[in-house]
């Protein structure tokens, strides 16, 4: 498959991700083209027409996001590369940062040029310490080569990139939580309005783009929107880096045009289920997205196709579970994650996540009662739509999907007063 955009360089034997290697593959030609030949509006137009949608989870059209930044503001503007990759099941941005850091940097510099921003940040999760070091080195290389700093490539555009490490909080992947954290505060998401494009970091217009999203920009600039739009499906253009983990023989990253089926990814790419067990459940888009049953895996892995069957592409973190897996335990595992990561700011999430965890914990350990199952579903309904940020849904959806789709297994736990799959 030659249609790779993100992993094209890194999968070549001997490719180190150094500036030299990157340039040998045509790296920074898009920056030269953008700064030399293209106006900001032209680039926005190009990206809009390419159909590129955010790769962080929400799938918001990238060009449109940029266009919300006011053109005539005396304020500074900021761009933040969201490298907080924390959605369980997702590990693509880390690979980009380790194996081809200049790819996302080039995208970041072009995007900053588009919104006329002179300082941008990479907000990287704190655990990625070595990855942050790699980025710092790559930034140095780019500075020395004149791709960053004052008067980049003689264009008159000045730009600096700083790496900002988080310190252990999933919620900082949410764009306003991220902005708060960048400002040195706890990562409590903001209420909107105002939206970041008008009032984001340090009170200034701000764009937050995911690492993989930015890594697509050089391709679009180099090859034109049509080349990008011709890949993938309608309303889901380009490629996607799918992350497969869990009970498969060959877990890892697989880049394909959007629209490849989940079945192909699991059985063709990842070589099927470990020990040739049967598939029981699969989460298609990172832990927050509703789980699917084996009957649903013919779904195409793009935004609309997954939405049609009640799930979402999210971050394309695919977690595969075989038939030895206890669904109550898996659900409890995620529920613990969300209870641990709830920022505690708003009522439904702060109280609801812990409540669901406690009920699931009881069911898994034989203390469940018959009305607990409907209560769980009601709690998910009560959280959804009533929180400050999308974390409410992120924590509620998986529980609702697990309980709904594997209800009999939950009921069995309650009836037998123990985990029915425990060895």
């Amino acid at each position, binding site marked *: 498959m030659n249609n790779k955009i993100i992993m094209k360089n890194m999968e070549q034997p001997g490719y180190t991700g150094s500036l030299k290697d990157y340039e040998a593959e045509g790296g920074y030609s898009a920056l030269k083209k953008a700064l030399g030949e293209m106006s900001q509006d032209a680039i926005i137009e190009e990206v809009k027409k390419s159909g590129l949608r955010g790769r962080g989870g929400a799938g918001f059209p990238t060009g449109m996001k940029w266009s919300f930044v006011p053109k005539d503001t005396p304020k500074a503007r900021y761009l933040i590369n969201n490298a907080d990759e924390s959605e369980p099941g997702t*590990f693509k941005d880390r690979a980009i940062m380790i194996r081809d850091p200049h790819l996302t940097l080039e995208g970041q510099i072009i995007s900053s040029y588009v919104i006329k921003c002179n300082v941008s940040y990479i907000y990287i999760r704190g655990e990625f310490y*070595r990855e942050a070091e790699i980025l710092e080195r790559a930034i140095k290389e780019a500075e020395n080569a004149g791709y960053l700093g004052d008067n980049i490539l003689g264009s008159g555009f000045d730009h600096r990139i700083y790496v900002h490490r*988080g310190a252990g909080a999933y919620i900082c992947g949410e764009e306003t939580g991220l902005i708060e954290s960048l400002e040195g*505060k706890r*990562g409590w998401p903001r209420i909107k309005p105002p939206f970041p494009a008008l009032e984001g970091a340090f009170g200034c217009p701000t764009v937050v783009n995911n690492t993989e999203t930015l890594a697509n920009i050089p391709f679009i600039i180099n090859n034109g929107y049509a080349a990008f739009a011709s890949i993938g499906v309608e309303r889901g253009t380009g490629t996607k880096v799918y*992350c497969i*983990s869990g*009970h498969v023989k060959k877990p890892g990253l697989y880049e394909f045009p959007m629209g490849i089926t989940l079945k192909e990814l699991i059985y063709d790419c990842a070589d099927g289920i470990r020990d040739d067990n049967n598939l029981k459940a699969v989460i298609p888009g990172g832990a927050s997205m509703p789980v699917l049953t084996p009957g649903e895996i013919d779904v195409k892995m793009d935004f609309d196709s997954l939405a049609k069957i009640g799930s979402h592409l999210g971050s394309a973190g695919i977690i595969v579970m075989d038939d030895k897996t206890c669904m109550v335990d898996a659900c409890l595992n995620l529920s613990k994650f969300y209870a641990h990561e709830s920022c505690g700011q708003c009522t439904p999430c702060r109280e609801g996540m812990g409540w669901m965890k406690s009920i699931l914990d009881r069911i898994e350990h034989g203390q469940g009662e018959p009305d607990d199952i409907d209560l769980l579903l009601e709690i998910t309904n009560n959280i959804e739509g009533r929180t400050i940020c999308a974390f409410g849904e992120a924590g509620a959806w998986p529980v609702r999907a697990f309980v709904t789709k594997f209800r009999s297994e939950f009921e069995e736990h309650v009836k037998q007063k123990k985990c029915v799959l425990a060895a």
Partner: protein
Amino acid sequence: MSVEFSQKTLHEFEGLLDRYPTRKAASIPTLFLAQRDFGYISNEVIEYVSGLLDLTVAETNNIVSFYSMFYREKMGKHVIQVCHTLSCSLLGAANIVDHLKSKLGISPGETTLDNQFSLLKVECLGACGTAPAMRINDDYYESLTLDKIDKLIDRLAVKSVNNPSAEGPVQ
């Protein structure tokens, strides 16, 4: 014990301030510097950092207590952080924790008596494709097996015995 950055760290701190339009924005990186130099974020460290950043002690406390990577108590030389979120859990994170518990003789949240190892269970580390995974200090260890862990821990323990003052990560 009075807490103060060395000249070298102060220089790093000044460098941080240049990156942001506000002083407060440097709080997280400054706290990382403090944790690197002092081992953990004590009340004295909070006081000191508050002074550097023009924050009230309560504000710094508010920030520190939000983030799981800031330690409020003294940790072992090697802080083992075992991921136990779904992908790692599916591939045996619980066994790894149990194994480390018996090997080190401590439970998650505890530090060995010789202050060599602390054991923590942490949420998703973003290394799901190479699960099960863990970190020791700032380094990732992935596609773990119990055998791999044994060798790793033994090597770290020997290294510590031979060179107790050795700093920095083990490759």
